[in-house]
């Protein structure tokens, strides 16, 4: 399987009044066809900016640079505005977090859906309309034909998000980037939307880059996981492995915070990670997590910690050895 999206050494920097904010630092990952990669981390860790950087939709003050940024072999760093616009909505689709505000209130659903296709394909309005109906049904919306004439404010949040997904699929993209697609929805709807995404991905063999802070979602849907903290990737690997054997103290801390069916015992205290995420502004040296890490040592402050690969697709960013990490995990959970 050739890599659909290759990202290596991605940096995003934002010029603020107080200095240069290094929001995304040296992020590397790949997404293959038919594969789901999850970018996990708390608010502000840079995962959304990573996605926006790939799509070239960063806010005006932000700048990106990367060693490698390829989509289907095309170097996105050198792609001109026109070329990028041709790719967006066509080969790469992005779904955002707030379905309530992501659709234009002045135009019908049908208009906005058809527009997504008419922009990229030389088809008639009727054909675009038929495709819209087809996809609306695919995402589980009944009475699709009449829905086309409705306005966004006439639909619920869950329905709107389904419309967004359908809109992303109008041109049959090779990859979907979903930025917290279920965060703003009811819990009951979340599961439905996720299953929908998973089944659509399988059916159309798309690559899926899923951005979320919710580990529960990751467990359900992801093949591979990159855990991000303060702009960096601190751990990466297959989802199952990360859940079974988290290495980085942050990942361990995250997993302790949620109840895991089968592992968490009744009456057990759920953990929390003390402290707050620091702001990556100005000169950065040492491990970003050190203020909140239980296993802090002097070395953590002195030198920058690089990402260590322990096998083909397993990596983590900590000075402790894998064995020590495993030990810490066991020690904490007894």
């Amino acid at each position, binding site marked *: 399987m050739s890599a659909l999206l290759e990202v290596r050494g991605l940096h995003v920097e934002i010029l603020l009044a107080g200095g240069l904010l290094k929001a995304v630092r040296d992020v590397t990952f790949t997404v293959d066809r038919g594969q789901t990669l999850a970018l996990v981390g708390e608010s502000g860790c840079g995962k959304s900016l990573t996605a926006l950087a790939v799509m070239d*939709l960063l806010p005006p003050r932000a700048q990106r640079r990367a060693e490698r940024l390829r989509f289907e072999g095309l170097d996105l760093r050198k792609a001109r505005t026109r070329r990028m616009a041709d790719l967006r909505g066509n080969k790469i689709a992005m779904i*955002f977090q707030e379905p309530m505000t992501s659709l*234009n209130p002045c135009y019908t659903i049908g208009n906005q859906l058809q527009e997504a296709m008419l922009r990229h394909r030389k088809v008639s309005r009727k054909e675009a309309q038929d495709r819209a109906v087809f996809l609306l049904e695919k995402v589980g919306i009944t009475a699709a034909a009449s829905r086309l004439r409705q306005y966004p404010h006439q639909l619920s949040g869950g329905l709107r998000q389904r419309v967004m997904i359908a809109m992303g699929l109008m041109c049959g993209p090779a990859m979907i980037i979903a930025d917290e697609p279920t965060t703003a929805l009811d819990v009951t709807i979340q599961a439905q939307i996720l299953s929908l995404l998973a089944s659509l991905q399988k059916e159309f063999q798309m690559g899926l880059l899923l951005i979320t802070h919710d580990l529960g979602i990751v467990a359900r849907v992801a093949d591979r996981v990159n855990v991000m903290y303060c702009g960096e990737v601190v751990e990466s690997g297959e989802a199952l492995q990360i859940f079974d054997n988290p290495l980085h103290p942050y990942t361990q801390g995250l997993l302790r915070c949620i109840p895991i069916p089968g592992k968490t015992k009744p009456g057990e205290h759920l953990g929390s990670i003390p402290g707050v995420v620091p702001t990556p502004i100005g000169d950065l040296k040492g491990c970003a997590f050190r203020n909140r890490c239980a296993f802090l040592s002097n070395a953590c402050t002195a030198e920058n910690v690089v990402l260590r690969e322990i096998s083909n697709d397993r990596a983590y960013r900590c000075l402790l050895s894998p064995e020590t990490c495993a030990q810490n995990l066991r020690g904490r959970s007894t």
Partner: protein
Amino acid sequence: MLAYTLKRFSLAVLVALTVSFVTFMLLRFSGDPAAALAGVNATPRQIEFVRVKYGMDRPVLIQYAAWARRALEGDFGESNYFNQPVQAIIGGRLSVTMTLGGCALAFAVLLGIPMGVLAAVRPNTWVDRVALTISVIGQAMPSFFFGLILIIVFGVMLRWLPISGSDSWRHFVLPSIALGYYATPAIMRLTRSGMLEVLASDYIRTAKAKGLRSGSVLFKHALRNAIIPVVSLLAVQFGFMLGGSLVIETIFAINGVGFLGYESISRADLPMVQAIVLLVSMFYVVLTFLADLFNAFLDPRIRVG
């Protein structure tokens, strides 16, 4: 829909009553209308004669009620100066003022909206600053001053355009600019702020993520939303223009309702003044109603019923 229209209609009636009542009282109590009518050199007997002749010796409320009753039938009295029915004289001049107002509004829109869009797309650049500067200066100049400058520059020095009268379309150019420029800053700023707000919204991000070209994003998606409050502003500004055309019409000797109002005041032709005030206020009410309807047309979220 029907209920809404009825509600607005009864509001309009109430406004009409209140405006005409307030104006009536103001005019009656501002001085002795009989004395003003009789002239500066009139003797007390002459003034008394005028007072009785025009029914100004009755209680004020009775006078108003009589006026209102006749007004409902379309009779706004006779002009003291022309000795003809008021409505005939106003009718003749109305189209001129409407034309002037329309042209002025068109000028303001053609200048203000593109400037606002441009300023929003390039915020905090020199384009933005120039637009804001123009708007700030535009709002500081009194309209009569601007009108006189236009006359001097374009009418006299360059001799491009005529400076008085209302015969040809050319006669309307300078007055329209003088009347319209005052609304331009407000339109430009509202468009700019509306566009800035809209451009930061999520559905614009979606539009870009769909790969839409910037023209489509800007005009089909952004402006369509940003323009909605501007429509209400335009209605209000048009109403103001109809009321404020007085100064411009006087300077450019345009035979419109505003100039008529000015002349009527100098001649103490109170029935005329009364009628004109009522007319302008009714226009305003109708305009805001139309603007609300248009708003509902533009924004699907606020459609009634």
